[in-house]
């Protein structure tokens, strides 16, 4: 579908020439089944595991002592927990966008990055989900957030966006998981057929749910996959819209502004694609997958980052202009406090990392330089984290009454929890790469010229 176009447009192909059905299958399944586990994998997994232990320690101590071990206080009751929640859930969005929206838009280049992007979504949503739960104070009572019949006369406040969050995030996780797992089924069948050890054959066979690859299987499978894509598509927008409502529904200056929904969604996709690049670039290098994750993929991701980054910059501009134009005392002070208040260095770091540096992506040379792309992506991830920090902390710490102003300083337990989730995320990604095909084998096969001939023959 794409290869003839490539020669005309002069763009890099989405799958390097020379591959056949057999080589694609061999190459991807060998990473899981026959290649030796590299030392690099063991070290990377080990670091992730250690940090996950740190997370467990931090959470255990939190359960013993309570949220007082964190830096949150009054007026800044939200702190790291909400900053990290929004950051992680935003990162997940790129996976859903790639797998669902690009599938519906017939963009075949998604086929080599959708699988690990979906895995990234799942692990990011897991990390995200931990924070609001832990932030509850008594996380073991989390089920009070659900509307279920009970004798305590407890019923959720449906006007609160925090209740909307429960529904949005749990739906998001469920649909993302189903989409990812359904996408895996034909490949699990392939692994089952190729595995040598009994254990592996049994495990993959169990997960493949009796997949035989018959014409009827494929027909049902394709329609199920399309339906799931249709279900997942609104979630790309709805989840972060609800997250933005957590802020915008209030009347806190800096939170209550109508551009928040589209601006949050754009920011989510922005950071998500940065994370896709941060994962794709090393994978591509260490597993020599440059022929499957080509420059075309990296450049397309970079372009999406540029566009969404510009929308985020537009959001900042609108906030500032509106505060000046309407000269509302509180909005004007919020902007002034961000630029000149105690958190000003973080604000200016945000402007540099999130707006100025990514403008380098206008240049084709930067977009085609793998090292530069990796650097910009890391910087954008930092920038988007800073954005959430600025939104949460600077708006809360100085609001309407000067007598209730305060400061927020994260404690070491805040940092341990945050770094711990990064470790958990890394560990989960390492396990995924080791035990499941990180690139969709059957979808890659549809990119081959042979597949096109067969499609035409139909």
């Amino acid at each position: 579908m794409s290869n003839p176009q490539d020669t005309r447009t002069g763009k890099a192909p989405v799958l390097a020439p020379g591959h056949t059905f057999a080589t694609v299958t061999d190459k991807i399944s060998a990473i899981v089944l026959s290649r030796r586990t590299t030392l690099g994998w063991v070290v990377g997994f080990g670091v992730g595991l250690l940090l996950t232990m740190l997370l467990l320690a931090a959470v255990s101590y939190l359960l013993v002592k309570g949220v007082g071990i964190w830096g949150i206080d009054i007026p800044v009751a939200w702190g790291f927990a909400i900053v990290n929640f929004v950051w992680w859930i935003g990162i997940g969005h790129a996976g859903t966008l790639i797998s669902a929206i690009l599938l519906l838009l017939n963009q075949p280049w998604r086929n080599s990055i959708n699988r690990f992007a979906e895995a990234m979504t799942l692990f990011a949503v897991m990390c995200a989900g931990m924070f609001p739960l832990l932030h509850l104070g008594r996380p073991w009572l989390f089920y009070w957030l659900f509307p279920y019949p009970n004798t305590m006369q407890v019923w959720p406040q449906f006007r609160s966006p925090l209740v909307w969050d429960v529904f949005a995030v749990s739906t998001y996780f469920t649909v993302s998981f189903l989409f990812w797992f359904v996408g895996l089924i034909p490949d699990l069948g392939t692994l089952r057929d190729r595995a040598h050890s009994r254990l592996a054959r049994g495990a993959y066979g169990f997960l493949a749910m009796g997949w035989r690859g018959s014409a009827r299987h494929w027909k049902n499978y394709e329609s199920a996959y399309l339906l799931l894509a249709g279900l997942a598509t609104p979630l790309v927008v709805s989840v972060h819209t609800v997250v933005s409502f957590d802020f915008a529904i209030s009347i806190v200056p800096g939170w209550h502004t109508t551009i928040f929904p589209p601006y949050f969604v754009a920011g989510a996709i922005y950071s998500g694609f940065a994370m896709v690049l941060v994962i794709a670039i090393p994978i591509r290098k260490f597993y020599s997958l440059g022929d499957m994750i080509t420059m075309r993929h990296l450049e397309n991701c970079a372009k999406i980052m540029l566009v969404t980054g510009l929308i985020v910059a537009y959001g900042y501009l609108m906030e500032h202009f509106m505060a000046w134009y309407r000269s509302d005392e509180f909005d004007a002070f919020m902007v002034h406090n961000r630029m000149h208040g105690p958190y000003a260095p973080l604000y200016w770091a945000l402007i540099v990392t999130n707006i100025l540096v990514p403008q380098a992506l206008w240049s084709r040379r930067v977009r085609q330089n793998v090292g530069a792309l990796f650097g910009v992506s890391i910087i954008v991830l930092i920038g988007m984290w800073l954005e959430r920090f600025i939104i949460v902390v600077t708006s809360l710490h100085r609001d309407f009454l000067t007598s209730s102003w305060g400061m927020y300083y994260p404690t070491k337990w805040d940092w341990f929890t945050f770094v711990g989730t990064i470790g958990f995320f890394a560990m989960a990604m390492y396990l995924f790469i080791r035990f499941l095909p990180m690139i969709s084998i059957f979808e890659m096969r549809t990119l081959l010229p042979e597949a096109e001939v067969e499609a035409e023959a139909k």
Partner: protein
Amino acid sequence: MSYAPVTLPYPAPPALARIQRRSLVIGVVFLAGAVIAAIVEHSPAQFFRSYLLGYVWWVGITLGCLAVLMMQHLAGGLWGFVIRRPLEAAARILPLLAVMFVPLIFGIPYIYLWDHRELVLHDAKLQHQAQYLAAPWFIARGALYFLAWILMAYLLNRWSAAQDASGDPVLRRRMQTFSGPGLVIYALTVTFASFDWLMSLDPQWGSTVYPLILIAGQMLAALSFCAAILFLLAQHKPMSDIVQEKHVHSLGKMMLAFVMLWAYTSYSQLVIIWAGNLPGEISWYLRRLNTGWKYVALALVVFHFAVPFALLLSRDLKRNARRLARVAMLLVLVRYLDLLFWIAPNSLPGFEHGMPFHWMDIAVPAGIGGIWMAAFVWALRQRPLVPLHDQRFEEVVGHAPETA
């Protein structure tokens, strides 16, 4: 623009000449009638309010066409090939729209509160805004927006004409490279124009997503207008041989996307302002939802979202040029309704209650539309209906261009 050859390759069908004449007659009759009535009835405020409404409606379609033109240069896609000439023709009439901006300048004292010194005097915030919005700055910024728009339209059209003549591949690359920054300039200029021309009708009110709603509306109007025009062109040679189901299908998909974007941004604005319920913000909705205008709001929910959304979900409808053109006409018309909802309830004291709908709110937009349409068709007839050396030519038409 400069030299029109006697026989164009792929010329516009003669039916267009008739449309051009009729549109011009409609435009002149309606506008002249409204001007005479405004003078006889001494109702300049109503006239200028209606003029602003009609003007923003048609400027929106034009600018939407400019933006979609740049979007298709950036993204490619075969749908862009078949509507490239209508998009370019719409962009070429921007100088005419710049001239039609002049009456608005005379209308400033009649429609904008901030121009009234005695009303602004007692409020420091209003004074601050009045300094920014003040007529000289308002005019200077307007001139700047038009300068940017006309320059972008001029360059893209000039390169397009050169591409028709020479087929130089450098030109394609140039148009593509230009379109990225071009879209950024489009978004920024439309944003500030929306503050000046529309949001400042209610000077103390502000909403940060407001310009995005307008941008979504402009793109929607432009795509819908193109879908309708494409259906018209496809009735005659040469476009009847060129336009295929899949091109119409792509247009329909994008119309659906922008219907959703419009609804999403409009809903966000409503729900955030409703939940915050702050006096400075909710006033905008109270004036619209607690008066007769609520029926217009309801009509917007039904005809700007629910009905086109439901219809455009159908794949069969999107692949049927005639049925899609009907939905497209509806969408061009509801853009008018949306702008009426934004503009009309906001005017000078006396207009705040009930639903003061005036016949000029129909006559003047129709008059401006007639003149716009005549100019558009004239511009469309100046060039071949398909870009001759576009990289997609052979893929769509099936053979190399026949140059006459």
